[in-house]
């Protein structure tokens, strides 16, 4: 819905005429959708704004409160959660806020604005012997810790996940206040996000990101980690036939498959406890093939080849040695664990050329588009919580039965129905996910909506926890889950009402201030 002219002008006064638009072509480019919907373009924003700094963000938020208009901020806008929840929502595309404000090498943190992308931050860090968490959505996405869904990625074993990496934060609340968390508020320093007293980090993010529902996070500091690899990967070739020319010294790659999920999870647990892995990523072979193939044909050829070679579910491991002796030790322990858990290495990817390429892709996180979209143009997923063992695996086993049914019906791409589990923080936490790929047809969309609903219901009925999937999608799902989970919906709603009394921060990925009728 077009903004009233005076209101449009008020926003224009904030950002300048070059940084606001309601041109339908521009609006459509912000309404592209990749999920289970038949229409490629969804709800349009009322206008797109490009604020350049915190002051402009604050001014826009204040105008939204004045005129009763909602806003949705996004960083790199990759997620469907950055789409509008209704016709009267203006977009704050934060692409002009693209500075790495600080890399503090000695104290291991980086401060970023929302449009710093992960590969950019990582490239700067690697030059300094450091690395960062990158979400599985890809290195092309924002490095800003709030621009995420659940915030985990392939390197979670050694780089944790976003909610736990956040330090100080600058937050423009839905009422237009600027709150500086932790040491930033007290001292103007970025090193700590908690206190004085209770940590306000708690109201800004949970086991999933707020997805636009609680204001705008204009700057944030995030923990960074040691990197023992090269400052720059030596790449040869031209896209898409490009890869590093070698495996960096003290790096090791393997893909292992196991007779059953039981052994696979046990191997992950032992690897975690022995603190040897830089990365343990629960790719199934379909995802592995997508990482390697440069075309659909190649992708399928790899998949068919690997399918014949594996015993069952599997994962890839990357070791990184901080010294030659550290590397040798880690390799020996890994070999022993794999022997004990009956793992088998997938031979074709032992080839140093292929392994080198996979190391690079799995650290720069270059393949998520291929993994998710190549087969059918669309994907969806059922996500568990953040426990690597026990209930997550039980949940995934149960959901994979639903997936296999849809595969049988020819609705989903046949990847043998596998799910992924992968650990964070050396197995203290982890993630489980079941990815489904499909073509967007009315028939498939119906089936997939049914699949998601059934997966959610299963999580409630069988006590599998509050899944990550729940957040960022439909806000009324919280009202379905909350009564089974400490009434958290009631509490989250109270926070929403207190911090966003005019409901201007678009809640389509959060919880609405007012409970919808008919939802218990």
């Amino acid at each position, binding site marked *: 819905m077009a903004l009233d002219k005076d209101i449009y002008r008020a926003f224009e006064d904030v950002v300048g005429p070059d940084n606001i638009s309601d041109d339908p072509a521009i609006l459509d480019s912000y309404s592209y959708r990749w999920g289970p919907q038949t229409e490629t373009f969804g709800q349009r924003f009322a206008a797109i704004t490009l604020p350049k700094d915190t002051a402009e963000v604050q001014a826009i938020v204040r105008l939204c409160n004045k005129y009763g208009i909602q806003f949705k901020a996004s960083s790199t806008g990759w997620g469907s959660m950055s789409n509008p929840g209704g016709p009267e929502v203006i977009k704050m595309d934060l692409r002009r806020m693209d500075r790495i404000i600080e890399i503090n090498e000695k104290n291991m943190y980086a401060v970023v604005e929302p449009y710093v992308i992960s590969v950019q931050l990582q490239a700067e860090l690697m030059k300094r012997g450091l690395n960062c968490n990158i979400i599985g959505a890809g290195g092309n996405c924002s490095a800003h810790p709030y621009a995420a869904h659940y915030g985990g990625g392939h390197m979670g074993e050694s780089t944790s996940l976003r909610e736990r990496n956040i330090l100080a934060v600058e937050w423009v609340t839905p009422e237009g206040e600027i709150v500086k968390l932790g040491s930033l508020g007290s001292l103007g320093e970025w090193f700590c996000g908690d206190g004085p007293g*209770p940590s306000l980090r708690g109201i800004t993010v949970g*086991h999933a990101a707020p997805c636009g529902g609680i204001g705008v996070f204009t700057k944030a500091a995030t923990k960074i980690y040691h990197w023992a690899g090269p400052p720059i990967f030596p790449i040869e070739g031209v896209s898409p036939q490009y890869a590093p020319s070698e495996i960096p010294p003290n790096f090791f790659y393997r893909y292992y498959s196991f007779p059953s999920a039981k052994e696979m999870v046990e191997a992950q647990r032992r690897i975690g406890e022995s603190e040897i892995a830089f990365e343990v990523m629960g790719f199934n072979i379909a995802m592995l093939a997508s990482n390697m193939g440069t075309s659909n044909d190649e992708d399928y050829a790899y998949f068919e080849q690997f399918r014949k070679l594996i015993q069952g579910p599997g994962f890839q491991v990357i070791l990184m040695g901080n010294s030659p002796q550290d590397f040798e030790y880690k390799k020996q322990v890994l070999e022993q664990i794999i022997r004990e858990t009956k793992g088998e290495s997938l031979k074709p990817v032992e080839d140093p050329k292929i392994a080198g390429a996979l190391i690079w892709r799995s650290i720069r996180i270059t393949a998520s588009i291929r993994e998710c979209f190549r087969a059918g143009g669309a994907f969806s997923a059922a996500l568990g919580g953040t426990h690597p063992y026990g209930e997550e695996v039980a949940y995934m086993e149960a959901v994979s039965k639903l997936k296999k049914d849809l595969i049988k019906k020819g609705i989903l791409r046949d990847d043998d129905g596998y799910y992924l589990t992968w650990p964070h923080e050396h197995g203290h*936490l982890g993630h489980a996910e079941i990815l489904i790929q499909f073509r967007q047809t009315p028939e498939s969309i119906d089936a997939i909506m049914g699949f998601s609903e059934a997966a959610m219901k299963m999580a409630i009925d069988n006590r599998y926890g509050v899944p990550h999937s729940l957040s960022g999608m439909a806000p009324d799902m919280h009202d379905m889950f909350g009564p089974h989970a400490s009434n958290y919906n009631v509490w989250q709603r109270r926070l929403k009402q207190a911090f966003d009394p005019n409901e201007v921060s678009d809640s389509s990925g959060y919880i609405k201030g007012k409970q919808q009728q008919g939802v218990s």
Partner: protein
Amino acid sequence: MIDEKKLAKIVGATNVSHNPATLEEYAGDMSFVKPIKPDYVVKPRNAKDIDKLVNLAKETLTPLVPVSSGAPHFRGDTIPGIGGAVIVDLSDMKRIIRVDRMNRVAMVEPGVTFEELIPAVEKEGLRLNMPLLPRKSKSVIGSMLEREPVVMPKYHWDISDPLACVEVIFGTGEMFRTGAAAGPGTIEEQWAVGASQKEAAGPAQVSWHRLIQGAQGTMGIVTWASLRCELLPSIEEPFLVGSSQLDKLLELVHWLTRLQLVNECFILNNINLAAIMAKKFPDDYQDIKDSLPPWTLFFNIAGYEYLPEKRISYQIKDTTDIAQRTGLEPVGAVSRVSALELLKAVQRPSKEPYWKLRYQGGCHDIFFITINDKLPGLISAMYDMADEAGYPASDMGIYLQPIVQGVNCHCEFNLFYDPENPSQSERVRKLATSTINNLMAKGAFFSRPYGESTDIIINRDAASVAALKKVKSILDPNHVMNPGKLCF
């Protein structure tokens, strides 16, 4: 005043006290916070009692002060902020509810102390990441809720660690479970499907545990908490590195934590190390102190299930290489202090009497979070201020604890003094508040403010205070939970 019968009906008559001597015990502590006598002390037996107590307090607008640890208390946070309060002493709630080896997590009630939990987790091959030598009566939950620093920075991924989930009765009288514990289902039902109440964040898009931590009991009363545990090493090799050059030690600490090579890792000045290691005061203490270099770094290398000897031996080589690059040498003993003896000491709570009280009978701590680069400036400023106030530098203990995997450092000045000596006490009291502004100006972040200096610290940032008050208005709208603390 609240009706005693109503309290007795909830917790049983024997668990309510208004005996003047008992009330006196809770009226003050070792801090400089003004004593205020509570009306009653109650000892709930379980979560149901707590639920009823909070609901009664809500109806009668009675202030509740939750206390988990036993005396002596040091920070004034368990002294009632106003009159008419009821102390809710949770120290009798001592159930170790569960120890789960596979998921490396334990679940305990608030009265469980480190001394009680350590053997229980050890039986399962686990250990705790605990604060430096907590006093014998210190509650595990109390320590975690206070975000106390822990001695193994490598396993301290996030400042909220090792806390996982909690069950809490908010000031509204409603029960809530944080993180993975929220549900669906009862805790027992969750166990039955393999869940472990380990994930702290959530449920959904809020991390409630972060709002309960650091709150000094102002949001609600925790009835149990789960916590991360670490594996018990199969072998360990501790080291000491003495030096007069703090910057070199900090450089070494940076690499040890960055490469995650070591488990326990902290720096003590000679005063604190002597206070911890001395068996007889004052002679033994003085001898050790005089024989030590100004600073000593302690670290410990560990091997676990797989090839432990190999791991230890290459990690010793790697740490020695790094130390050499910084011109330092890790050794097994520095003067009369052996690394092994110190390791044994810090893997348990303090022996009695509490190490901070052994030297002079009293100790006031000034502590904050900072980053390594700022430490030398902060320490020298503190010495100057102590000097100006007439407090002898030779009595000031310093403890530097890398936290959050070396991203931050907890810095603690331990001002030992004789509480029976009024002029000494007054000097320390003044120093405790007069230093705050200057330290903040030099990069000290007081993330856990207590007592008299709270206002100076917390009022620095009006926007954060306003946000905290909004949270408070949701979780404890009637201000029954420990009123008068922080900005509430």
